[in-house]
């Protein structure tokens, strides 16, 4: 039987560091910052234009809080997607100071708030309105790599067995939340909209390296296409952009290697 939890009972009482004690005021410092946001109203504008907004924010605030403050208190027409607000749903990928990030995971204190903060929609997908893009081409590529387990043989009555080591091989790529930060940070994707893009390859990786899966060759064939993994020029933008810390470029390299070794076999 596995026993992976800690066995020692934690102490009933410990000494805490002094700063966790009581007393004192809890004033959170506030500061002013200016946002320059790329606005686009499809019903009236020919192309996007910049608008500036100044807001007073607090030390613990994220870019999403600032966008909400602008929408809720200044201009209700500002449009952007968001849902969970803590980096797990993948709705609010956007270009913040020229880098793809999730607005809900980007703390203002980590940006230089003495300068204007720019926010625009992610690049490479058709712009719909303000910070909203059409995600359909992105999900289309994802669907093409057959992102589901393709097992072989008869279905067992209990679970399929998988060793901890086999499970660990594809752990990193299971973290993907399909936010498109990686794919829309890729210069190849910007110039060639047919390229599958990093997110699709990450999700192919998640199955190709799953010991329970038998559809790897089919996916590799898809990715061996002219618009497949070979378009990747290893610029590492995708790895930098991933809000989940997935080693995207490494995963793409592993898929490339699998293509070479498996096609030689």
């Amino acid at each position: 039987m596995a026993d992976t939890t800690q066995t020692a009972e934690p102490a009933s009482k410990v000494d805490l560091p002094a700063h966790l004690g009581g007393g004192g005021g809890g004033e959170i410092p506030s500061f002013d910052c200016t946002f320059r946001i790329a606005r686009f109203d499809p019903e009236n504008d020919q192309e996007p234009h910049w608008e500036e907004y100044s807001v007073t924010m607090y030390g613990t605030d994220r870019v999403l809080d600032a966008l909400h403050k602008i929408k809720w208190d200044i201009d209700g027409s500002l449009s952007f997607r968001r849902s969970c607000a803590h980096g797990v749903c993948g709705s609010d990928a956007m270009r913040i100071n020229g880098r793809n990030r999730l607005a809900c995971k980007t703390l203002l204190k980590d940006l230089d708030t003495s300068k204007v903060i720019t926010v625009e929609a992610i690049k490479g997908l058709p712009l719909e309105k303000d910070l909203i893009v059409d995600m359909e081409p992105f999900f289309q590529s994802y669907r093409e790599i057959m992102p589901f387990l393709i097992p072989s043989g008869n279905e067992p009555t209990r679970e399929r067995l998988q060793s901890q080591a086999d499970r660990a091989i594809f752990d990193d790529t299971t973290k993907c939340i399909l936010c498109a930060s990686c794919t829309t940070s890729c210069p190849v994707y910007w110039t060639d909209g047919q390229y599958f893009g990093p997110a699709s390859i990450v999700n192919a990786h998640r199955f190709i390296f799953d010991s329970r899966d038998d559809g790897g060759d089919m996916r590799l064939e898809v990715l061996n296409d002219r618009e497949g993994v070979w378009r990747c020029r290893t610029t590492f933008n995708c790895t930098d952009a991933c809000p989940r810390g997935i080693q995207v470029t490494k995963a793409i390299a592993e898929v490339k290697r699998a293509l070479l070794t498996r096609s030689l076999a």
Partner: protein
Amino acid sequence: MQVHEYDVVIVGAGGAGMRAAIESGQRARTAVLTKIYPTRSHTGAAQGGMCAALANVEEDNWEWHTFDTVKGGDYLVDQDAAEVMAKEAIDAVLDLEKMGLPFNRTPEGKIDQRRFGGHTRDHGKSPVRRACYAADRTGHMILQTLYQNCVKHGVEFYNEFYVLDLIMTEVDGVRQPAGVVSYELATGEIHIFRAKSVVFATGGFGKIFKTTSNAHTLTGDGVGVAYRRGIPLEDMEFFQFHPTGLAGLGILLSEAARGEGGVLRNVDGERFMERYAPTIKDLAPRDIVARSMANEVREGRGCGPNKDYVLLDLTHLEPSHIDEKLPDITEFARTYLGVEPYTEPVPVFPTAHYGMGGIPTNVESEVLANNTDVIPGLYAAGETACVSVHGSNRLGTNSLLDINVFGKRAGIAAAKYAETAVMPELPEDSESFVVDMIETLRTSDGPERIADIRRDLQETMDANVQVFRTDETMRQALNDIEALRERYKNVGIQDRGKRFNLDLLEAVELGFLLEIAEVVTVAAIHRKESRGGHFREDFPDRDDENFMQHTMTYKDEDATSEGIPGMRLEWKPVVITRYQPMERKY
């Protein structure tokens, strides 16, 4: 306006909706309508695990799981439903594994299991390892796996289609659904979806509170739509406050942190849960832990400059163990509070988490029109529904189980019903209610702002209808809500466009929030006892004699309840099979 026709229409694409879609999509022509992209659904934020008595790591069986669920819900659970859930939990987990879910594994390669609050061996003797998990992103993996399998089966999604009305009709004197009316966010167009069966799987309504683990999108639309069409809502007063939200932010830190050995401490460094639940301590059910934490703060033993939170201490755990089992939540602590959980305890306080109540259903996921009659062709599953497996307090992990077990049942039942049912005629002007609502709001130019009303609503709910409640505080909340509903009539929005008018979307959502907050508060005032997640300081004891029953709230123009016109409250008996109510001690 466009009119579409399907056998089955599923509203919502979180865990319950997609689990239903996988079944229904293989049996009947099915459409899934969802306000947000399926992979954005809040199922993905669930962390810790999904319980099933697999007995992979220690002795366990589904009867113990049933008992824990009943006791955890403070005996307000319908025991037939809890039994179905605990029994089918095993297949639900195995189904997911077969669909590809990457569970953590034991050294033998089986699905690993860990401890969770309120889940015990042999009727409360000690914590048991029952939660199957994938690190601390189990919900994420469930959502991804279900979406992947929807792709596999070619399920038809209508993404960013916001359902705003349920079309009801009468066939041979029986009320039943004829479809739904939906607003397409991208275009502003109205779509009618005719259907033989309709499944509601629209999630919860946590945004009635300010401090919450819920997504911005969880505004109670599904329960609101049903309620406005005369369908009762069950047990709405029972709302779960999860003990460990990041202090000040409400972001969830999984109970798995305590399942893996973390403990709560007050300002004296004391592991205070030893006093409140001597046997299972920090792994007591959430209502008890949340109340204990709030009590520590009230009695002056809170931490920090304002003494308004307690601490989740993981510092005695090995960093490698934390990295392996709790990577995401420790990252949340680092990102949002700048706290390093390896070496520092994490500030936490209860956060509004889960509505136990919802649209009443039976174990077949059929929606009830009243205490006994089903509405043919209408189904509900997940947090939207109240079946009731959670009673007055849900056990951790049982929501992921609920969506899988009853989502699957709803999908099968809806498709089966559609096989023989005749497509109901569409009543005249089915869309007019939605068209009027949308046009009124789109052109609204009153002085009141959506955000102000919502903020005021959330603040009064946090202050007055939270972990501790009294008649006085709740009457205050009710007065505030009534005033806010008046202000809502004078709301103005700024976006006049048709495409992606999210200003308008928020105005519509606010209407649901106000309505649901009122239902929650009236039902809470009406229940003059304390049970599970509903704790009344003016009635601190459980009162089985008078209140061992479910609350059913109806929208009824001819009635008045607790001084609020337009509402009728009734009671519905609890189903008791094998466990007689006992005192709840841990």
